[in-house]
C-alpha cells in the first residue's frame, strides 16, 4: 500500500521563515566525469542554484616552464605534446614557430603546408573529442561513438606520418621531423571526403535535438565584453561574437594562402560554442584540401635549420663535420640570439602563446606558456553563478578545456 507523505503546513511555515535554510558547499571533481580531467570546482549552492564557484586547478601541474629552463630548445618539443594533449601536432607547430621567430628562421613552403595540414587535422581531432565529450555531458552518448570512430581514422594517419598516435613530437625547430610518406596526402584527402558527410550526420544528432538545445541554448552565456576582458580565445571567444582568429588576423605558416571562413556566434551560449566548433571542422577540411591541392615541392626543413636540428643519422656516423655538429647540438643546444619574443598560434582550444626570454645559448632563460584553457577557465567563477548544478556540467562541456594545458 502506498504511503502518502503530506506536509500540510510546510509551505505556511516556510513563508513565516520558520525553516532555517543554509547554503551548501559542494566539491565537484577533481575526478568527476564532466570535469574532463582533474579540474575541481568548489561550488556554493542555494538549493539547485550555484551562488559561488571557485575553480581549483593545479592537479596536473608538472612544472613545464621550470623544465623548459633546464633543457635545450630541441629537447622541449616532446613536452609541448603534453600541453593540449588532444592536439599535439598544433602545439608542436606553435612552439616551433615561436623559437623560429627568435632564431629568425623562415621555413620552406612545403614545410609550412605540412604544418598547416597537420594542425588542421589536429583541430578536427580535438573538436571531435570536444564534441563527443560535450554530448556525453548533456546525455547524448551516440555522438561520442561516431566522433571517436572518425578520430581513430585521423590517428591512423598521424601514426603513418609521425610514428605515434598521440604524442607526435612531429615539428622540429626549422622544419618537421620527416617528409610526408608517399601517398599520404591522398589518404588525407580521402579522409576529408568521407568525413564531411559523416560530420553532417554527427552534427544532425545535436543541432536540432530538443534535449541538446534545451540544455545548451541560453546556458553559460558569455557577453562579448566579458569574453575579451577575461582573455578568452578560440571558439569560445568567437561564439561570443568576436571575429578574432589569428589564422586570419595574424597569419602564420602560410595561412594567408588559403581561403576559409571564420565561424562567429551571436549569443555566446553553449549552443553557439557547439555550432562554432562544428563549422570550424568543415573549414579545416577546406584548408586541408587547398593545402594538398597546392602542395609545394622542396625541402621539409629550412637550410639554415641545420645549425639547430640534429643532422641525419647516416651522416653523423660517416662524416666528421656532421658528427661534431651533432655533438654540439646535443650537449650545448642550438645557439639562439638573445632577446624576447612572444608568439601566439590559433590552436583548437584558443591562442596558445609562447613568451621566450633568451640570454643567448641553447637553453631558454624563461619560457612562459600562455595556455588558452587557463584563460578560458578563468571565467568560470562568473559564468557559473546563477546556473543550476546540471548547467555547470553543460557549461564545462561547452568550454572544451584540457587540464594538461591549463596546469602545465
Amino acid at each position, binding site marked *: 500500500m502506498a504511503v502518502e507523505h503530506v506536509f500540510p503546513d510546510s509551505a505556511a511555515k516556510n513563508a513565516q521563515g520558520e525553516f532555517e535554510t543554509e547554503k551548501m558547499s559542494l566539491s565537484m571533481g577533481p575526478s568527476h566525469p564532466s570535469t574532463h580531467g582533474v579540474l575541481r570546482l568548489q561550488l556554493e549552492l542555494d538549493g539547485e542554484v550555484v551562488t559561488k564557484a571557485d575553480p581549483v*586547478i*593545479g592537479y596536473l*601541474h608538472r*612544472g613545464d*616552464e*621550470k*623544465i623548459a629552463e*633546464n*633543457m635545450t630548445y630541441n629537447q622541449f618539443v616532446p613536452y609541448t605534446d603534453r600541453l593540449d594533449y588532444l592536439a599535439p601536432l598544433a602545439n608542436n607547430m606553435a612552439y616551433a614557430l615561436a623559437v623560429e*621567430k*627568435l632564431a*629568425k628562421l623562415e621555413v620552406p613552403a612545403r614545410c609550412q603546408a605540412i604544418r598547416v595540414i597537420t594542425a588542421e587535422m589536429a583541430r578536427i581531432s580535438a573538436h571531435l573529442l570536444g564534441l563527443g565529450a560535450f554530448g556525453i555531458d548533456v546525455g547524448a552518448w551516440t555522438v561520442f561513438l561516431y566522433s571517436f570512430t572518425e578520430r581513430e581514422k585521423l590517428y591512423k594517419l598521424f601514426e603513418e606520418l609521425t610514428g605515434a598516435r598521440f604524442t607526435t613530437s612531429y615539428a622540429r625547430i626549422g622544419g618537421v621531423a620527416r617528409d610526408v610518406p608517399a601517398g599520404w596526402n591522398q589518404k588525407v584527402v580521402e579522409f576529408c571526403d568521407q568525413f564531411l558527410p559523416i560530420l553532417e550526420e554527427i552534427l544532425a544528432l545535436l543541432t536540432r535535438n530538443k534535449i541538446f538545445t534545451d540544455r545548451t541554448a541560453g546556458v553559460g552565456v558569455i557577453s562579448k565584453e*566579458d569574453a*575579451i*576582458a*577575461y*582573455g*578568452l*580565445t578560440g571558439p569560445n571567444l568567437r561564439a561570443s561574437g*568576436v571575429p*578574432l582568429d589569428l589564422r586570419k*588576423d*595574424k597569419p602564420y605558416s602560410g595561412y594567408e594562402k588559403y581561403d576559409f571562413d571564420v565561424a562567429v556566434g551571436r549569443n555566446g551560449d553553449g549552443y553557439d560554442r557547439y555550432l562554432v566548433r562544428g563549422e570550424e571542422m568543415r573549414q579545416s577540411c577546406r584548408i586541408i584540401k587547398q593545402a594538398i591541392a597546392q602542395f609545394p615541392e622542396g625541402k621539409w626543413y629550412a637550410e639554415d635549420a641545420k645549425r639547430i636540428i640534429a643532422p641525419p643519422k647516416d651522416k653523423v656516423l660517416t662524416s666528421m663535420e656532421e658528427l661534431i655538429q651533432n655533438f654540439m647540438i646535443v650537449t650545448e643546444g642550438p645557439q639562439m*640570439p638573445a*632577446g*624576447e*619574443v*612572444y*608568439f*601566439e598560434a590559433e590552436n583548437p582550444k584558443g*591562442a596558445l*602563446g609562447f*613568451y621566450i*626570454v633568451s640570454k643567448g645559448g641553447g637553453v631558454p*632563460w*624563461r619560457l*612562459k606558456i*600562455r595556455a588558452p584553457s*587557463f*584563460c578560458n*577557465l*578563468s*571565467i568560470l567563477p*562568473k559564468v557559473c553563478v546563477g546556473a543550476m548544478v546540471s548547467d555547470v556540467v553543460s557549461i564545462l562541456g561547452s568550454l572544451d578545456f584540457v587540464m594538461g594545458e591549463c*596546469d*602545465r
Partner: protein
Amino acid sequence: MPAAADAIAALKASWPGVTDRATLDHPAVNVPPADLLPVLGALKAAGFDMLTDVAGVDWAVGASPRFTVVYHLLSTAAHEYVRVAADCADVALPELPSAAALWPGADWHEREAFDMYGIRFTGHPDLRRILMWDGYPYFPLRKDFPLAGIETELPDAEVTAETKVGAIAAPMMGGPFVASAGEINLTDAEPRAKDESWTEKRPKPGA
C-alpha cells in the same frame, strides 16, 4: 603608423618614465611600477583591449632588479600586440599594482605569478596560490629553486600522518639521467646502465 607605435608614442609623451624596451618582435616599453596601472589603462583605452598574457621573469639570484612582470596586450581590432614590462623595485618583497580591476582575466595570471615567483600584486581581490596548494612554502620558478624540487609536507596533515609520505623531490636531482636522488650506485639502481665501475686502475669485474 601602426596602432601600436602610435599608442607607444602617446604613452611616452604622457609619462616620461616610460622607455623603449629592446625587442625582437612586438613594440615594447618599460614602465615604472608607479605608472603601470595608468599606462595599462591608457593602452586599453587606445584599443589594446585584451590582456593575453602576464609572465613573471626572474633575472637571476642577486640581479637587480630581480623580478619583472611582462604583460602582453592584443588589440582585437587592429590585431597588434604590445609588450609592457614593469620591474619590481624590491628584491626581497617584490610588489606591483594589480591589473585585475582593468581586466578581470588578470586575476588568474597574477595569482600564477605570485604562486611561481612570490610577486605580490597590491589591490588584487584574492591573491592566493593557484597551481601549487595553499600553504606551499616555496616559489618554484625562482632561479634558486632546484629543478628536482624540495621535499615538503603534503597539504593535508592527516594524510601525511597516515601515509608518512610527503611531496618528495623528483628523481632528477643532480642531472637528467641519474636514476635515483639518493646515494645508490647507478648500476644498482638502473640495471640497463652501462657498467663503468672498472677503470685502468680497477680491474673489470668478472674479468
